[in-house]
């Protein structure tokens, strides 16, 4: 398997799918001529031409709404929001339209569309540009939500997203674009939705995470192994559908769980995961499920403060140790 970056894996997924299916079109701010502000769409305009790869005005709600219409009209649009923060300008088309149209119209139409949105914090972009909004998308029924941690999952999940006949919110982590890993080169190798991936097996405690938090959880597990704590790291991969079965089974085995989420803690997805774990493992849990979360503050700019707001490896290590030490 060739090694490539998360960015290149996404780029390859787009290219392979666009070659396969001429009804796939791509648009967004600066995705064509400029090749994307994170260069994920590099080479698309050159290969597929300006009929299929289009730059748009800065009009996020309409970027999504036009995709909704085009999907109703028989195409498979992949719309990029330059960053997920701008989804807040498009919540009307995302939540009021994209996720509801199929249902409210009695199932008479499919919306095979993908929204690609880079997100997450950690680059000192301050409050308006560092948000982790995944919980907002998980909360609303009617769409799939994927958020890969590795290049292989990035490629396989994006291909699945594009082939899915449902709307998909496809989140990408800005700090993972340069991360490298092996990626299957078979264009038919897909990663299914609704299946967690156990990225590390362990026996003492389960760490449930997603996207960049998975990478940090794996680093934490490595450190903890030195102290003889054996962590199982479960990567959600898709937030919707949520594969509770896999992480519940893991916690049943280990008896302890920590959830790592980059988003704000209050009403973040970590509360949902924790509740599902309690639902499924009430009598096998040996300690309360702990959350390692983004702080409940707007993101500060200063790197000194920013670091406090985003879960760090050391935070995970500390909370795992506390959970292991808890006596009940």
């Amino acid at each position, binding site marked *: 398997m060739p090694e490539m970056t998360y960015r290149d894996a996404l780029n390859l997924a787009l290219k392979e799918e666009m070659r396969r299916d001429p009804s796939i*079109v791509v648009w967004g701010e600066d995705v064509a001529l400029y090749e994307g502000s994170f260069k994920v769409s590099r080479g698309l305009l050159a290969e597929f031409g300006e*009929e299929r790869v*289009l730059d*748009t*005005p800065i*009009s996020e*709600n*309409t970027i*999504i*709404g*036009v*995709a*909704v*219409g*085009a*999907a*109703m*009209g*028989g*195409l498979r*649009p992949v719309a990029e929001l330059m960053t997920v923060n701008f989804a807040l300008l498009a919540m*009307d*088309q995302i939540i*009021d*339209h994209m996720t509801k*149209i*199929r*249902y*409210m*119209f*009695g*199932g*008479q*139409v*499919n919306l*095979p569309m993908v929204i690609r949105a880079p997100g997450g914090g950690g680059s000192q972009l301050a409050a308006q540009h560092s948000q982790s909004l995944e919980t907002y998308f998980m909360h609303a*029924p*009617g769409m799939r939500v994927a958020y890969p941690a590795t290049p292989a999952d990035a490629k396989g999940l994006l291909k699945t997203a594009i082939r*899915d*006949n*449902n709307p998909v919110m496809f989140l990408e982590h800005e700090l993972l674009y340069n991360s490298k890993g092996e990626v299957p080169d078979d264009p038919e190798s897909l990663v299914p939705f609704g299946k967690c991936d156990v990225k590390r097996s362990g026996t003492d405690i389960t760490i449930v995470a997603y996207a960049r938090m998975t990478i940090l959880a794996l680093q934490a597990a490595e450190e903890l192994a030195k102290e003889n704590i054996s962590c199982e790291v479960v990567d959600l991969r898709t937030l919707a559908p949520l594969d509770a079965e896999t992480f519940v089974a893991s916690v049943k085995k280990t008896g302890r769980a920590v959830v790592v989420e980059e988003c704000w803690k209050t009403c973040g997805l970590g509360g949902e995961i924790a509740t599902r774990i309690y639902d499924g493992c009430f009598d096998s849990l040996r300690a309360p499920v702990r959350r390692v979360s983004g702080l409940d503050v707007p993101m500060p700019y200063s790197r000194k403060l920013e670091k406090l707001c985003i879960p760090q490896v050391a935070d995970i290590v500390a909370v795992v140790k506390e959970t292991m030490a808890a006596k009940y």
Partner: protein
Amino acid sequence: MKETSLRAILPDHELVRMYEQMVLCREFEESCAEQYTKGHITGFLHLYSGQEAVAVGSTHALHKDDYILSAYREHAQAIVRGAEPRRVMAELFGKATGICKGKGGSMHLFAPELAFMGGYAIVGGQFPIAVGLAFASKFRKEGRIAACFFGDGAVNQGTFHESLNWARLWELPVLFVCENNAYGIGTSVERSSALADIHKRTCGYDIPSVRVDGMDVMAVHAAVKWGAEWVREQNRPYLIEALTYRFRGHSMADPGKYRSAAEVELWKARDPLPAFAIRLIEEGIVTQAELGAIKQESIAIVQEAVTFAEESPWPEDGSVWEDIYA
């Protein structure tokens, strides 16, 4: 100046059909009001009475496969496009036989086989969707245009602006049709729009536009005919503002106190139904007796629709989980 003879524009049977549809829509809406009062129809109910010339004039000027989108005052748009009144009524009753299986209700009719692409309840929500359908049509070289209907209140939403700019920039075949009935709920156009001449608001996008008498079905027909063909040929957007009026309140919950009785009467005197009937009679296209028969026929259709809706089954409980995902 003598008006052009109707026969020079459309064949007799189509003119009669147009009149029939106007009457049918009026009867349908009046029946809805009754069913709402009885509690058979619930939720929000926005009636179209008074505006029939717009839906009928437009639809007959469009190709059958041109896309139509509208807001929540869309029963007539759907029915004129060909939706069965009984299935629309069943939808309003929330029955399983409804056009959207009872899931959409009054504000969300949808009939893709008729290219009727939906009623939307978020003011301004349909603009970008219409642009997207136009994009798909152009991309697939289908030659269909997207006709997007909306109210005067919708033009102050950001999506109106974003969509006009986008449609012109990408050169997409969208026909924007504003049904200016002078009010968005209780707020008049003058109190919501910096420029009350809505059709002039396209000047900032290099999009041509025209204002038309929305109480005159043939005037609407002519404007949409010309506009739709221009849109189709140029692959560019165009906007029509039809001046019209709703005879009832905004929804069934609205007593309509913000409009004077005199104003309402003035507009009722311009009711598009009798106005069109008179022209049809004057030109000898229908007789007075035929008019009566048309009305009876419409009443019968609507009554049958109500019976159908009443007798239809409720959706199964299990269906609540269906239709979310493909």
